[in-house]
């Protein structure tokens, strides 16, 4: 079971790393933001998998904070990239 979960964590990392191609290609802010969103979710998943393979203190809390702060960053990005939502008009 430990081997399976570790292998799953590695595979997940490879998958979300591949998704970063969208960060390189763009072409817009929205597409790049999506790649980061996928990376955040994938990192949380990877932490959960590796924490259940080998018990690690705090891994679940790190995943929790990643999820919470990724939402904040995405909101800041979407809002500041779009003047119509920035409340300045």
């Amino acid at each position: 079971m430990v081997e399976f979960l570790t292998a799953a964590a590695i595979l997940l990392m490879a998958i979300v790393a591949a998704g970063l191609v969208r960060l390189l290609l763009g072409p817009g802010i929205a597409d790049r933001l999506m790649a980061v969103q996928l990376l955040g979710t994938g990192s949380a998943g990877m932490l959960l998998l590796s924490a259940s393979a080998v018990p690690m203190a705090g891994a679940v809390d790190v995943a929790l904070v990643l999820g919470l702060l990724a939402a904040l960053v995405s909101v800041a990005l979407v809002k500041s990239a779009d003047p119509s939502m920035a409340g300045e008009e």
Partner: protein
Amino acid sequence: MSSETWFGLCGAVLVGLGLFGLITHPDALRKLLAFNLLGGGVFLVFGTIARRGAAAGFGGDPVPQALVITGIVVAFASTALAVALLRRLAEAGGEPAAAAPAPLAEPPS
């Protein structure tokens, strides 16, 4: 190669990249990003040293880890101060036309 060595070398690469960006980027905000990358590299080298010092049942030496936590917070404080300075500079200085911004999003086809 052991895992902490990987991250130590990665930290060395980050220091090099950050230094290069800090020197060559004309834009101050990009210099600030480079400065944060440089700091991240230094912290990773600290992390390597902490991991190598694992003893007494701890996964790493807690003293360098505590130093890194302090460092991350101070790096944020200086970044915030630098951002405020940049904004004030932009308000105070003349504003010649800058390069055209990149497209925000690709319209759906």
